[in-house]
């Protein structure tokens, strides 16, 4: 039913949606004369971004690099673990409770540990992003890998396919949509994890801008940084959606 890639109408809808949000925001803040320290106006924020573009751009690249790396590693770990659990089912009883428990602790609680283990630099941020996304991908991938019906599995077995053959030719393709769902959900989370970790200790990045600016009561900078990060992760998300449509072409 859903044919092909992203149409111009999809793009238009995204633009209209975001534009509406900003117009409503601008109008409301002007109408109710909301002071900057409660909610600044989007135009002011935009101007702040332009003014501080060099600092923000450098921080954004830093943050996106950490997010991207953490996202990739976390996704690989999540998928890899899910694959292991499907290949060796008894492991599930061991790994899942542990994964659940780890994930139940807010990632911020691990920041001190991350700082101890991975230092102040990018390493600890990447570790936090990995932590934030791996579980989500794991859960989705696991459910996707278990989706194929018994008939299809039996067919593969009758051709003499081993666990790996079934995994590669049946389970993984069938799990693709679920995995991408996991990635979609996880992307925002890993951005958050990185920013929060940066707030608690980093040399650079959006999180540091947020943290320093908050302490210096500079809300325009806070919002400028956060908005930039938002747009950055929206761009990453767009790439994911494009991949998504390519991956489930057979619907």
């Amino acid at each position, binding site marked *: 039913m859903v044919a092909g890639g992203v149409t111009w109408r999809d793009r238009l809808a995204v633009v209209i949606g975001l534009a509406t949000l900003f117009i409503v925001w601008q109008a409301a803040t002007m109408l109710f004369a909301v002071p900057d320290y409660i909610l600044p106006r989007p135009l002011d924020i935009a101007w702040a971004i332009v003014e501080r573009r060099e600092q923000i751009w450098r921080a954004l690249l830093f943050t996106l690099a950490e997010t991207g790396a953490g996202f990739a590693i976390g996704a690989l770990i999540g998928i890899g673990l899910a694959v292991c659990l499907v290949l060796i089912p008894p492991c599930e009883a061991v790994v899942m409770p542990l994964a659940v428990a780890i994930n139940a602790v807010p990632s911020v609680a691990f920041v001190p540990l991350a700082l101890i283990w991975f230092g102040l630099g990018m390493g600890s941020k990447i570790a936090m992003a990995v932590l934030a996304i791996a579980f989500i991908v794991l859960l989705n991938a696991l459910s996707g890998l278990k989706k194929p019906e018994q008939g299809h599995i039996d*067919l*593969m*077995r*009758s*051709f*003499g396919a081993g666990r790996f053959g079934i995994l590669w*030719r049946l389970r993984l393709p*069938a799990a693709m949509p679920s995995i991408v769902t996991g990635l979609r959900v996880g992307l925002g989370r890993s951005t958050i994890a990185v920013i929060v970790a940066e707030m608690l200790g980093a040399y650079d990045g959006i999180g540091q801008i947020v943290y320093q600016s908050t302490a210096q009561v500079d809300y325009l900078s806070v919002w400028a940084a956060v908005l930039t990060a938002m747009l950055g992760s929206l761009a990453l998300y767009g790439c994911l959606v494009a991949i998504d449509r390519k991956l489930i072409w057979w619907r």
Partner: protein
Amino acid sequence: MDSSMATPSIAADHRPAHLQLINVWKRFGPPERQTVAVRNVDLAIQPGEFVTLIGPSGCGKSTLFNMIAGLIAPDDDGSILLSNKVQQDYGLLGKVAFMPQRDLLFPWRTVIDNATLPLEIEGVSRKAARARAEALFPEFGLEGFETHYPHQLSGGMRQRVALMRTFLFERDLVLLDEPFGALDALTRSMMQRWLLDVWAKHRRTVLFITHDIDEAIFLGDKVVVMTARPGTIKCAERINLPRPRAASVTTTGEFIDIKRRLLAVVEEESLKTFGGATLA
């Protein structure tokens, strides 16, 4: 289990059987509300033999096939022997070319990629596999549909793709579960011919489920009839019609005789499913 039991029945046929079932059972569900699908099946099939299997709907034919293909383990009461060797549970996987009743095509693979699936699993290069499959497309009446996806095919076309897939998985023992069920009369007879040609050339052992008694007699060296559920072997009839068989054989008196006999047996069994309802 006890391969000693096998000896007499092999001896009786004077040739080693390719496939032998000894007291095979299959029960589903918990003991309280059990469905016995297959009961006490004994069967021996010679190498290169073409055996057709008929029986009322739901009598356990597909279940029997699943056990022979190694997909489900028979209950502990009996054993399955391939070339006289007792097979462990699931030991038959990969040794038998199996076409399931439902086509089970993969929705994300094109027609040709669905067909070459078993070759890929065997490790044949993609190019070689495709070349081998492509040669079959005209014979299967699927020319021009190589790059379609399964949802773009008709029911009969899907079934033919599934059959092609099975034959690209070249094994000495072939199990076909109603391979021609969704085909019109002529496509069906074209495919029957093709099947007999392949069989004559390679002499694979074929076990073939059908609901069409004509088809069963026309194709088989032996027709095996199963009883209503719980299914066991009711009788087996050797078909001594000369080969190669022309389509006209179906009008010979000998053929009609066999058909009448088998029909009577099958009807008796089918009626049990309907709890003794009568047919005018």
